[in-house]
């Protein structure tokens, strides 16, 4: 078990392994998204209240869910990197942050586009969901700004890991504290007692989109980690062998 992790954490091994996974993730993700998009946009019944406007759910919910997932990945790998000093997991955290920020941004955008017909406003100050999502975007920004501010990679890794962990402690607090304010936003729809409160014709494309987004996220993450690893190990022998033509690596 331990040796497995040890091997996984070795950059060249990971670099090769990731290369094998990326196409699979990409293909599965694309397939799910294709199904979800077609089924969701053309075949799912229109909502009896919202008409076709609801269809943005197929982007909104997956990105909202991934924005949180990405933070968890970032925080957990930061913790692993800090405690066990595994450099690879710092690379994962660094790679996850911009992706997470993008998905957060996407969730905010789609949500606010959706909010316009639904609530008659792009943005509603003081709504807990909206606010906590915005705060999460700021947490990502803070993480990335701190990283960008420190030149030395190892130092940036450690400092930003501390921040990611502090932020992780705070996410539930942000989440629950803003719940104090009454919400416009949808309550739990999918995961709740008594099963999903959504018609199956809408549900399956949505689930497909969620899976599809997740796999695409996985492929993007692995790809980013690969570049990150390559950059960090630029002095290592295996990278030289990889990059320089045969016989040119003295």
């Amino acid at each position, binding site marked *: 078990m331990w040796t497995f992790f040890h091997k996984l954490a070795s950059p060249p091994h990971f670099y090769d392994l990731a290369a094998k996974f990326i196409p699979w993730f990409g293909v599965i993700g694309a397939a799910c998204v294709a199904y979800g998009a077609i089924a969701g946009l053309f075949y799912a019944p229109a909502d009896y209240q919202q008409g076709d406007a609801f269809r943005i759910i197929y982007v909104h919910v997956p990105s909202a869910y991934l924005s949180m997932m990405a933070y968890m990945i970032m925080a957990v790998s930061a913790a692993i990197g800090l405690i066990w000093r595994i450099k690879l997991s710092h690379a994962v955290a660094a790679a996850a942050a911009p992706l997470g920020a993008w998905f957060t941004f996407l969730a905010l955008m789609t949500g606010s586009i959706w909010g316009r017909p639904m609530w008659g406003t792009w943005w509603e100050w003081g709504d807990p969901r909206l606010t906590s999502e915005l705060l999460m975007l700021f947490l990502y920004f803070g993480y990335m*700004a701190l990283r960008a501010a420190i030149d030395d990679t190892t130092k940036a890794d450690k400092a930003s890991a*501390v921040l990611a962990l502090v932020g992780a402690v*705070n996410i539930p607090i942000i989440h629950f504290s803003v719940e104090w304010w009454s919400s416009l936003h949808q309550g739990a729809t999918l995961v709740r007692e008594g099963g999903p409160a959504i018609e199956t014709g809408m549900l399956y494309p949505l689930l497909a989109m969620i899976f599809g987004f997740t796999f695409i996220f996985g492929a993007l993450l692995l790809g980013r980690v690969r570049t990150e690893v390559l950059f960090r190990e630029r002095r290592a022998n295996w990278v030289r062998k990889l990059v320089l033509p045969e016989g040119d690596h003295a």
Partner: protein
Amino acid sequence: MNQPTLNMPSLSSGFLSVVRRDVLLAWKRPGDVLNPLFFFAMVSTLFPLAVGPSSEELAFSGPGVVWVAALLAALLSLNSLFMSDFEDGSLDQLILSPQPLPMTALAKALAHWLITGLPLVLVSPLVAITFQMPAQTISVMMVTLTFGTVSLSLLGSIGAALTVGLHRGTALLSLLILPLAMPILIFGARTVSLAAADDAVSAGVYFLAAYCMLTLTLAPFATAAALRISNE
């Protein structure tokens, strides 16, 4: 030769030394205490000026403005929490002293609160009066501000430790701290508004107290870790 253990100070002596030194420093340059206060006062007068004076308006937005002003005043003073220690080499000495670093971090945060948070709490009734806040609201405001500023000093010490030596001024620090400080702001302002409307305030006060306890137990460790990293 002396035993190394001879050098080990008692926890409280080291802790008090740090607090005493920082308060003494503030005493030597009273600006450190006075500036955040003036800033606090100014921001709370700027808003009415910028938004326009209409007294129902003012009474309504009073708690929010006071809280934002307090938050900003605290943020502004945080930047210097470890900076001068870093620059004159004292930080090396603090890290290498036999005192456990989280204790030192806690002492620094406490001193920061004594220098900036406490005066702010004490002066807040004056500002509140200009917003026509009634007396019982003011006492709620002071209690929430107390918990809030303590938490801010502690959270801020994490941010200050992470950014020390980067010479980025207050902006980066604020970016790191604001998301964490937001719940304090929301609850603080909200609780004071509730008090003004004669509503129950205990939930808000409990939340702030709990948040304060949480930061009190966790922040010193995060700050210590951050200090070691930043000082590499």
